[in-house]
């Protein structure tokens, strides 16, 4: 690992980034306090888990988010966006994780980053829509195996005049029932394609996955010979677009994990100060105190690595991919650790539906797997840090 880095000493987290994060914090604190979150997504388990209803979300809150300009954060000013640095976006996404916001924001930011990397006219048109109207947009980039490899496009395309016909199924599509547009990756021969498709287009069928996370929905999306007009083809050679975007997608999830992990830490610390057993607050006991300190240290490592990865990506450093793998690995494991300890240290109440802990626990479990868990990223890092395995 060379120390060649053009990134600034403060990670590029300047006054504007601080202001954006603080606005996000105050906004979500006012609009989505824990009680409201619980009433919104976890009032009745039978509705979400047994009734087959789509995961609830607050559309009025989403309109306010669009008003705040969050959908345009990763879009250039020419397309009406705010063009905020990745480290600035990470600061906001940490707050999104802290309040476990159910919304299509993360998919929309991910899609914006993909579109910006493509930079074509078709991409610009969709970005203008996202920035001005807040069109929720998602990604259909994962196959049936749940592969996170950018080359494993889920769909196949055949030429149809100027346009294309898409067939096949994309899986693990995040917030598919919230988005209006999907960016889909497909193979045409040995080329990777990226196209924009409306979720209500003819031949597109969404089938809801039954998931444990209450703060999002997920679906498999079937494409039954869907006709793509030439102006909806974002890139006919998207390998480099995926290569450039993937590390950004990892750090977005990592930032969400960091925010949610910090909420779990602070919530458990508060409980440990109040809950009295054996005539003392349980935080007095080192069996409670020390794991909380360990969790804090893991979260701090993850946060430092997330800011580092963002700064490296913002600066276009050669270290950026390594840094992004490190951030997602560390954040996944830090969040897993505090998720585990938060339920255990709360004792009986932490095991009940009544407490909000499980909402965060499940969001974290979901996010750990999304874009690859710690083991996956460390396998990637091994090739970068040690070199490929020499003997097979």
């Amino acid at each position, binding site marked *: *690992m060379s*120390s060649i880095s053009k990134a600034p*000493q*403060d*990670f590029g*987290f300047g006054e504007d*980034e*601080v202001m954006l994060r603080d606005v996000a914090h105050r906004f979500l604190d006012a609009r989505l306090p824990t009680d409201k979150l619980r009433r919104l997504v976890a009032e009745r388990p039978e509705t979400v888990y047994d009734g087959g209803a789509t995961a609830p979300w607050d559309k009025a809150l989403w309109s306010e988010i669009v008003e705040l300009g969050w959908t345009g954060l990763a879009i250039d000013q020419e397309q009406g966006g705010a063009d905020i640095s990745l480290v600035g976006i990470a600061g906001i996404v940490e707050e999104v994780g802290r309040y476990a916001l159910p919304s299509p924001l993360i998919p929309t930011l991910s899609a914006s980053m993909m579109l910006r990397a493509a930079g074509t006219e078709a991409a610009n048109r969709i970005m203008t829509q996202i920035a001005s109207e807040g069109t929720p947009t998602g990604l259909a980039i994962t196959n049936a195996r749940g592969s996170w490899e950018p080359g494993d496009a889920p769909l196949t395309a055949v030429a149809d005049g100027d346009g294309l016909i898409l067939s096949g199924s994309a899986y693990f599509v995040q917030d598919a029932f919230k988005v209006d547009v999907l960016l889909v990756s497909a193979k045409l021969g040995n080329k990777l394609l990226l196209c924009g498709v409306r979720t209500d287009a003819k031949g597109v069928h969404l089938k809801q996955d039954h998931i444990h996370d209450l703060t999002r929905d997920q679906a498999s999306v079937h494409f039954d010979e869907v006709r793509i007009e030439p102006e909806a083809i974002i890139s006919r050679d998207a390998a480099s677009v995926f290569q450039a975007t993937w590390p950004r997608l990892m750090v977005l999830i990592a930032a969400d994990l960091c925010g949610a992990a*910090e909420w779990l830490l602070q919530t458990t*610390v508060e409980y*440990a*100060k109040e809950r009295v057993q054996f005539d*003392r*607050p349980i*935080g*007095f006991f*080192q069996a*409670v*105190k*020390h794991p*909380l*300190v*360990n969790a*804090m*240290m893991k979260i*701090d*490592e*993850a*946060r*430092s*690595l997330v*800011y*580092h990865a963002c700064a490296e990506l913002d600066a276009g450093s050669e270290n950026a991919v390594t*840094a992004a793998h*490190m951030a997602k*690995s*560390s954040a996944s494991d830090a969040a897993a650790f505090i998720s585990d300890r938060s339920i255990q240290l709360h004792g009986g109440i932490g095991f009940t539906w009544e407490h909000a802990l499980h909402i965060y626990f499940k969001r974290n479990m979901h996010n750990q797997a999304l874009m690859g868990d710690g*083991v996956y990223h*460390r*396998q990637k*890092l*091994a090739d970068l*840090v*040690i*070199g490929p*395995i*020499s*003997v097979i």
Partner: protein
Amino acid sequence: MNAPIQEPDPNEFRSKVRRWLEENVPPPSPERLPITPIEVMTFGQRDYLQEWQRKCYKAGLVGTDIPVEYGGYGHKGLQSIANQEMKRAKVPYLINIVGLSMAVPTILRHGTEEQKRKFIPGCLSGEEIWCQGFSEPGAGSDLANQRTMAKKDGDDWILNGHKVWTSLGHFAKWMILLTRTSSEHKYEGLTYFLCPIEGQSGVTVRPLVKITGETGFNEVLFEDARIPDAYRLDEVGKGWTVAMTTLTAERGASEGAGSGGGAGDILGATAKLVELARNSWSGDTLAADNPVTRDAIVQRSIAAEGLRQSARRARVSSLCDHPMRLPLQQKLAVTEFDQENARLGVQIAGAHSTLYKRDSRAPSEGHWPLAYLNSYGNTIAAGTNEIQRNILGERVLGLPKSK
């Protein structure tokens, strides 16, 4: 560079230091040096390191931010640059670590003008080596449980007691010493002294042997040792407050008076493990090809980058929730990082991890088992890591006190 550095511009200072270090690479040590200065054992090692500290001091790399009247160079905020450059140049460490990182900050804060002028210059030059007399057989994590008694006798104090884990004690001219002057109050009954050791009657320094088989620290016995009241630091009964200054400085919250090169090359630690894995076998495959070992090495490299980036983040207040949250993790994080690395090195070395320092087939001259055994010194010293976790839980997270 014979004249002390005068220029206050940080960038200029940095390049001057860098150039000086390039032009003044010390000759190799005639004897193998231990991993850290607190394990220095032989007079040969001492002489070599004392000479190196003297040169660094003369060049303005030690005592950089200390006032001129106390033997320093009177700059502001340049010591950390000198420390960084010495680390970067991978030059030997400074032997007088207890003096520079503990005694000097404590004397500066609590000493009289006379004490500052008397004690600090010799400490900076390395001529007078310091040791620390805090720990006792019955006072480890519960540091205030001091039994070493200091009794007033006219203008003198008579000392009786037993100090342990005294690194550098066998070379030391002075000791920062915590004693009990009253049995009535646990904390307010403590008093702090700057105590002469070398040639002092009633003081015996005896080596203690570590789990490595090496000496390197000592026990110090006080039997009716008599010292003047002029060596008392701050008021009678203020010993605990003074000791806290020392411990805060020791745990890395301040830059001290210089730290030198040596250990602490965080990213280099992973490179060493990779190198070892490329030359070690796991059954009939290279350790570097074993997926479990690969995962373990990558975990160390993530931890290394995490430490480096957290050190950066600690300087960006808008990215820190609590001002002490990252600084107070430093001792704990670094000592456990080193320990985990050494443990993994032993594991990777496999059968060869059985070979110790004097075996010609031992990888890196037995570095891995030696580093692993030695690592416990640092996870225990300066407040065990369990005590560090109490401090973090209480001061940063606000959990109830464990005592």
